[in-house]
C-alpha cells in the first residue's frame, strides 16, 4: 500500500476476486449433494398414501393408524363433541388457523374447517403434538366433553402438558398450533385415502 499503483484496483485484483467467486460457487455445488442426501429418499417418499375403511369405527371410538411413520388419529365423534367444538368462539383459540391441508392456509379454525366434505363426525388428524412431536392421549384434558366420570374427545400431551379441544385445536400449554390435518379425500361414503 506504499505506492499509488497498489492502491488502485487493477487487473490482478479482478482476477483474484473472479477466481475466488468461481471457486466458492464450485464448493457450494459440490457440497449440495452431501447435504441433500439427508433429505427423504425415494423409498420414504413412495410410502405416501394409505386407504382406511371408516365403517368399523363406532361412534365415540378412535383408531390410530401409521402414515409416513407418524400416528394419525381417526375419531368418530359424538354429537356432543361436535357441538362443543362449534360453540367455541374463534377469539378463544390460541391458533386461529384451520391447519387443514385440504383447505387454503388462511382459513379460520372453525369446527367445520377441521374436517373434509362436511363430515363432521369423522375427525382425521396427525397424532403429533405441534410442540415437540409427542403423541397426545385421547379423551383427556380440560377441553374434553365430560359425561359423569367419562371424558369424550379432547387430547392431552403427556410430555409438556399441551391441551387440545374436541376438534384437536390447541387451547392450553406450550404447543403453538392446532393438530395438523393431513391431506385426505373420501373415496366412498366410509372410505378415505390419506396422502
Amino acid at each position, binding site marked *: 500500500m506504499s505506492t499509488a499503483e497498489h492502491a488502485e484496483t487493477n487487473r490482478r485484483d479482478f482476477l483474484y476476486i473472479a477466481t475466488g467467486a468461481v471457486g466458492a460457487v464450485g464448493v457450494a455445488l459440490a457440497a449440495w449433494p452431501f447435504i441433500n442426501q439427508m433429505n427423504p429418499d425415494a423409498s420414504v417418499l413412495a410410502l405416501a398414501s394409505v386407504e382406511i375403511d371408516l365403517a368399523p369405527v363406532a361412534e365415540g371410538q378412535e383408531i390410530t393408524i401409521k402414515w409416513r411413520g407418524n400416528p394419525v388419529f381417526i375419531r368418530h365423534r359424538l354429537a356432543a363433541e361436535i357441538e362443543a367444538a362449534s360453540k367455541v368462539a374463534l377469539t378463544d383459540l390460541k391458533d386461529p388457523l384451520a391447519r387443514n391441508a385440504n383447505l387454503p392456509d388462511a382459513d379460520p379454525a372453525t369446527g367445520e374447517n377441521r374436517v373434509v366434505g362436511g363430515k363432521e363426525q369423522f375427525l382425521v388428524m396427525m397424532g403429533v403434538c405441534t410442540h415437540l412431536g409427542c403423541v397426545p392421549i385421547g379423551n383427556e384434558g380440560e377441553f374434553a366433553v365430560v359425561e359423569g366420570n367419562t371424558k369424550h374427545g379432547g387430547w392431552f*400431551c403427556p410430555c409438556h402438558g399441551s391441551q387440545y379441544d374436541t376438534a384437536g385445536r390447541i387451547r392450553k400449554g406450550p404447543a403453538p398450533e392446532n393438530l395438523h390435518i393431513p391431506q385426505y379425500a373420501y373415496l366412498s361414503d366410509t372410505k378415505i385415502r390419506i396422502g
Partner: protein
Amino acid sequence: MSGHASNYQPKSAFAKWFHERLPIMDMVQGQVLDFPTPKNLNYFWTFGGILAVMLLIQIVTGVVLAMHYTPHVDMAFDSVEHIMRDVNSGWMLRYMHANGASMFFIAVYIHMFRGMYYGSYKAPREVLWMIGVLIYLIMMATAFMGYVLPWGQMSFWGAKVITNLFSAIPFFGDSITTLLWGGYSVDNPTLNRFFSLHYLLPFVLAGLVILHIWALHVVGNNNPTGVSVKSAQDTIPFSPYYTVKDAFAIVVFLMFYAAWVFFSPNYLGHAINYQEANPLVTPAHIVPEWYYLPFYAILRAIPDKLGGVIAMFGSILILFALPWLDTSKVRSGNYRPIFKQFFWLFVINCIILGFAGSGAPDNYFLSHEAANPDKWALTYKLVGQICTAYYFLHFLVILPLLGLLETPKPLPASISDAVLARSNPSTAHVPAE
C-alpha cells in the same frame, strides 16, 4: 507448541537420526515430561486427565460395540440384547460404555465448575475456555445420538422431542427437521445417520482436546491462588509430580466408575428403554438422561416453544461469553468472599434445576402427585422457572456487578508465598499485584 525450550538430547544414534526428521520426542520432553506446572494444584486439577481417560475408554468400548450392533430399526433393539446375552463379555462392554457416558459428564461438570470457581476462563485463558465449551457442546450431541442407538422407547421419544426443537426455528424449521430425520418422522434413515455421526464425533472431540491442551500449554495452568506464575520457583515439572498425582486420581475415579458398572449398571438409565421403540405410543413420562436435566428444565420453564428453545441453547452458549461477563480482575474465588457465596448458590441452583427437569411439569415438586390447577402450588414447572431466572441472573447481572462492587482479599505475592504461608502461618502476609 509454545516457547518452553526442551532439554531433550537424543542419546542413541537412531534417536538422533529420528530427531532430525521428526522432533516428536523433543515435544514429549518439553510439553509432557518437563512442562512447568504450578506447584500448588489441588485434586480438582486432576479432572482434565480423568476426562482424557474417559474419552479413550468411550472410544475403545464404542469401537468394539459397533462390531456387534446393527443400525436398523428392525434389528437395533435386538442387536443390543444380543450384545447383552450372546457376545462374550458384551454385557460388560455395554455397561462400561453406557455408564462411561455418565462418568464422563460427572467429570466434565466438576472440571467446568472448577474453572468457574478459580476463574480459569479469565485472561489470558479465554480461548482455552471457549474450546472447552465447544468440547462440551459436541459431547452433548454425541451422547444424545448414542442414547438413540438402542432404539428403546426413551431413545425414540427423546430423539423425537430433541430433533423437534429445531422445528421452532421460524420459516425453515420444518425443512430442517425433515432434513435431520430423512423422512417425516424419526425412522430408519435417522437411526442410520445418528450411528454414523456417533462414531465420527468422538474423533472430532479428540481433535478439539488436542487444541484445548495446546491452548493450555501456550498460557500455562491456572492454579488455586489464581496468581500467575512469576518465577521458576513457582513451578515443578509435570512428570513425575503431576503424572503420579493424576494417575492416583484416575485410579480412584475408575473405582467409582467400576462400582456403577458392576453393582448398579442400570440405575442412571430408564427402565422403559428396555421396551422397543413404538412410534405410535409416547411413554407417560419422557425425561432425558440426568446430565441434560437442568437444560430440559430451562426448556420447559418458558411457556412458548421458540422462547423455550432459545433459553435452552442460550443457557449453554452464554458460557462462551463468560470471560467477558465476569468483570473482576481477581481470578480465584478463594480471594473473592462474596463471589464465593454466589458461586455455591449457582451450583445449588444447577442441581435444583436438574431435579426440576426430572418430574412431570404440573406435579408438586419432588412428588408424584398432580397439583391442583386452581390453587397456587410449588410444581416442577414453577421451581424450574425460578431457577431458570436465577441461572441467567447469575451470568447477566450478578457476575458483571460483583466485579465492580466486591472488595477482594489481598492476593499473595506469588504462588510460592501462598504455599509457604500455608505451611507456616506466621509468615507475614504480603499483599501484591
